[in-house]
C-alpha cells in the first residue's frame, strides 16, 4: 500500500470518528455534573492572591438553564502575598453560593454564564495589629458571584471546563472600616457528569 492510500485511509477513518462523535450530544437536561479544583483568586483591594479549593455541583434543568451550587475554601496559609496588618485580611475564609447558569452554544461545547447569590464566611482580627495577641471572630457576609466560562463534553462521563469569576462582599465585624471581599479568580480542570434520566428519542 502506497503512502497516498494510507493517508486517504487515515482521513476516511478519522472522518468516520468525527461523524460518530457528532451524533452523541452529552449536554442535555438531567445532566448532573461536578468537580473540584484549585482556583487561584486575587483579592485586588488587598493586592493579595490566595489559593482556593473550589467544588461545584450543577444540574441541567432545561437545554439552556441549570441550577448550581458551589463552595470555596481558602487553603490554609494559602496567601501568596502576606500582609502585616491582620485586621485587614481574613485569617480564614470560605464561601458558599447557589444560583443558576445559562448555557449558550450547540452540541458539546458550551459557553456558561452563572449568577449566584451566597454567603462568605471570614475570620477577622478584632483588634488593631498593634494588639498582640489579637482576638479573631467569624462573620457571615452577604455575597454574590458572577461567573463565565466554557465547557467541552468529550465523553459520556467527563468534560473539560475553564471559568473566570468575580465575587464581592463586605466583612462588617472589623476593627474600623469594613473589609471588601472583592475578588476575581480562575478555575479549570476535569469535570465529571452523568445523565440522570433517560429521554425518549
Amino acid at each position, binding site marked *: 500500500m502506497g503512502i497516498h492510500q494510507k493517508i486517504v485511509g487515515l482521513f476516511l477513518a478519522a472522518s468516520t470518528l468525527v461523524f460518530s462523535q457528532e451524533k452523541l450530544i452529552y449536554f442535555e437536561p438531567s445532566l448532573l455534573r461536578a468537580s473540584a479544583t484549585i482556583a487561584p483568586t486575587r483579592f485586588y483591594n488587598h493586592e493579595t492572591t490566595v489559593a482556593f479549593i473550589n467544588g461545584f455541583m450543577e444540574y441541567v434543568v432545561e437545554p439552556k438553564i441549570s441550577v448550581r451550587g458551589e463552595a470555596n475554601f481558602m487553603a490554609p496559609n494559602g496567601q501568596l502575598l502576606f500582609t502585616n496588618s491582620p485586621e485587614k485580611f481574613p485569617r480564614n475564609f470560605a464561601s458558599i453560593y447557589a444560583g443558576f447558569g445559562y448555557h449558550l452554544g450547540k452540541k458539546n461545547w458550551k459557553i456558561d454564564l452563572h449568577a449566584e*447569590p451566597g454567603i462568605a464566611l471570614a475570620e477577622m482580627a478584632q483588634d488593631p495589629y498593634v494588639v498582640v495577641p489579637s482576638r479573631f471572630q467569624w462573620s457571615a457576609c*452577604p455575597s454574590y458571584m458572577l461567573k463565565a466560562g466554557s465547557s467541552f463534553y468529550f465523553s459520556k462521563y467527563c468534560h473539560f471546563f475553564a471559568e473566570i469569576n468575580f465575587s464581592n462582599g463586605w466583612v462588617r465585624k*472589623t476593627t474600623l472600616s469594613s473589609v471588601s471581599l472583592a475578588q476575581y479568580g480562575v478555575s479549570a480542570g476535569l469535570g465529571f457528569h452523568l445523565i440522570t434520566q433517560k429521554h425518549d428519542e
Partner: protein
Amino acid sequence: MKLNFLFLMSFLALQVNAQEQRTFNPAGMLSLGGRTTVSLFNDHKNEMTGTGVGGQFRLRFSDAVNTDWFFDYITSDILNYAHRTDYHIGWSVLFYPINHLAYFHQPKDFKPKFRPYILAGHCFDYSKIEAKDGISPLDGALYAERWSSAVQAGIGTHLELTPRFDISLTGQYMIHLGNHIETDFDFTSGTLSFHEHKGASLAGHLLVTVSLNYKIARLWGFTRR
C-alpha cells in the same frame, strides 16, 4: 322565544371561542429563587449602602397577579464606628398592568421578554446595630436591637429567558414602623452610645433587588388546550 334561544347559543359560542384562544393559565405556578439586595438611602444617621442576600418563592394567583415570599439578610456600615444587620421576612403582591397585551401571550414560539410589574407588600424586620470592636471599652457587648414591621412598594420587571426561568429586577421603598434606635458617636472622645426611642417612628430605605427564579411546580389549575 326562539330568537332568545339563538341569541343565548351565540353568546355561549363566543365564550367557548375566547377560551380556546387562551391556551394557558399561569395561576398556581410556584417558583423558587435566590436574590441579592442593595440597600440605599438609609434613614439611619451616617448609615452607608448595605448589601444583602436572600431567597424567595413566588406563587402566582392569576394571569395578572403574582406574589413574592422572601427572606433577606442585609448588612451595612454606620460610618466606621458601628455596623448594622437587618433580617427581613415578608411578602409582596406583584401586579402586571399591561399583561393583557398580545406581546405577553405568545402561544407557540417562546421569545425572551420583559414583564413589568408594580408591587406592594409587608414585612417583619429584625435589626441589630453593633459597635465596631476595638472602639468601645465595652467591646462587643455594645449593641442595640429592635423588631419592627414594614410596608414596601415599588416597581420592577421580569426578564423571562425561558418559559420557566426569569431574572427579576425590583426597586422598592420600604418604610419601617417601630421603635427607633439612635446612634450617637462622639468623634472627639471616640465614644459610642445607643438611645432607643419607644413608640411608632417611621424610617425607610430604598431596596434594589435582583432575583433569579425558576418555576418548579404547578400547585393548582390546569392547561386548557
